[in-house]
C-alpha cells in the first residue's frame, strides 16, 4: 500500500513538474493518466520495495553526495590516463565481494561501481561482482571496502 502511495506521489510530481500547463482539463487528464499507470504497474507487478525504496528515501541523498565526490575524483584520474595514453593504463579484471544482504543493496553497489569512471561491474553472481577496471589502483580502492560499507549502511 505504501509503495502504491509512494509511486503515485512520484508520478504526480513528475507530471506536474514536466507539464507546465495547469488548466483543469490537463490536470484531470494527468490524474487519469496517473491512475492508469499505477493500475498497469500493479498488473505488471513492478510495485514493491525494490522499485519503490521508501525506506531509503532519507539516506539516499547523503550517499549520493559522497558518490558524486568519488565520481569527480575518478573522472580526473581517467581523463589524465586518456591523455597519457595506453602505456600508462593497467586494465585489470577481478571479483569483488559484496556484503549487502538484499538484491536492492547489491544493485546499488554494482551501479555505483559502474557509475564511477574507471571501474565497471561486468557481472553479478550471488555476492560476487566481477569488476573490470582501467587501473589496478581502482581495484585496490574497491577492495578497501569504503563504498561497500556505505551501501551496507544504507540498507538498515
Amino acid at each position, binding site marked *: 500500500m505504501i509503495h502504491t502511495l509512494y*509511486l503515485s506521489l512520484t*508520478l504526480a510530481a*513528475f*507530471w506536474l513538474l*514536466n*507539464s507546465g*500547463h495547469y488548466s483543469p482539463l*490537463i490536470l484531470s*487528464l*494527468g490524474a487519469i*493518466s*496517473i491512475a*492508469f*499507470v*499505477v493500475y*498497469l*504497474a500493479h*498488473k*505488471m507487478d*513492478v510495485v*514493491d520495495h*525494490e*522499485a*519503490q525504496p521508501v525506506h531509503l528515501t532519507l539516506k539516499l541523498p547523503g550517499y549520493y553526495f559522497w558518490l558524486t565526490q568519488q565520481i569527480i575524483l575518478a573522472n580526473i584520474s581517467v581523463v589524465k590516463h586518456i591523455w597519457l595514453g595506453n602505456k600508462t593504463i593497467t586494465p585489470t579484471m577481478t571479483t569483488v565481494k559484496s556484503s549487502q544482504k538484499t*538484491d*536492492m543493496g*547489491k*544493485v546499488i553497489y*554494482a*551501479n555505483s561501481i559502474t557509475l564511477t569512471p574507471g571501474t565497471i*561491474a561486468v557481472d*553479478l553472481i550471488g555476492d560476487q561482482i566481477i569488476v573490470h577496471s582501467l587501473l589496478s589502483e581502482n581495484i585496490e580502492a574497491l577492495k578497501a571496502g569504503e563504498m561497500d560499507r556505505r551501501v551496507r549502511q544504507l540498507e538498515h
Partner: protein
Amino acid sequence: MKDLLAVAMLSGIYGLLSASFFVTMDAVDVAFTEASVGAGISTLLMLTTIAIVGRFERSQRHKPSLALAVTFFTGVLLIYGTLDMPYFGSPNAPANQHVAPQYLNDTVLGQDKSVNQVGVPNVVTAVLASYRGFDTFGEVAVIFTAGIGVLALLAVVRRPEEDAKIAAINESMHQKNLILRIVIKVLIPFILLFALYVQFHGDYGPGGGFQAGVIFAAAFILYAMLFGLSTARRVINQTLIQILAAIGVLIYGSVGLVSILNGRNFLDYNALSSDSIAGQHLGILVIELGVGITVTSVMVIIFFNFAGRLENREANESVTRNISSDGHVTKEKL
C-alpha cells in the same frame, strides 16, 4: 558490409543523425517522430528480424556496381534539380504561397480568439489533426493494416506444453539480469507516464498520438524483453490488444461520423461543440487518443508476434535437439 547486425547499428546512428538534422531545421515534431520511430522502434524491429533470419548476408551473384552507378546518377540528377528550387525558407517558395499562409494565419498569427480557428498553440498538431484530418486518418489506417498484415503472416500458434518450458527459461533469466530487472522496474511507470504526457501535451508542444504510442509500446517491449514474453502476455491480453488496435481507428472514424450527423463535413470538429474552438480542441484530443491507442497496440502486436515466433523456434529446436540426443543414446545402447 555482410554483417547485417553492424548495418542495423549504423542505421540506428543514421536515425539519430537525421533527427538532429530535423532539430536544426526547427522541425521539432518531425524530429520527435524520427527519434521514437526511426531510431527506436524500427531499429528494434530490424534487430528482431535479424535474430529470426540470421546475421550474415548470403553471398550475392549479381554485381552491385551497376546499381551503385544508377543510384549515384539519380542522386546527381536530384541535386541538380534542387539548384532550381527556391532557397530554404524563401517567402517566394510555392510551399509558402499555397495553403500554408492561411493555416499559419489561422493558427499562429491569429492569436486573437476571434480569428484563431483551431485554438491549438502547436501549429503542426493543428494542421495534421484538423486541416489534414483526412490524411492522418489514412496514416492510422495504414498502421492498422500493417498490424493486420503481421497478424496474418506471423501469428504464432501456441501449444500449452511449451509454456512451462518458456516460463522456466524466464525464471533463470530473472536471476541473471538482476541489475537490469530492478532498474527497469523503477523506470517503467515513468516511461508509461511520460508517454501519456506526450500524448496529452501534443496541443502545446511537440508530441501527439504517434510519438506517444511508440513510447508507450516501448515500455511494454522493455518489459517483455526483461521479464519474458509469457509474463508480458499474462499482463497484456492478446485478444484485448487486437481489439484495441481496431478501437483506435474506430474512435477516429466515429469523430468524423459525429460531425456528419451534426450536419457538417466529415471530421469537421466545429460540430462537436457549440463553441467552435472548444469543438476543435475536443476533436483533436479525441482523435489523437485514437491514434495513440492504435499505434501502441499495433507496435505491441508486431513485437509480440516477431518475438513469439523466435521463442517458438527456439523451443522447437530444443525439442528436436532433445529427441536427437535421445536417439543417439538409444543407438549407443543398441
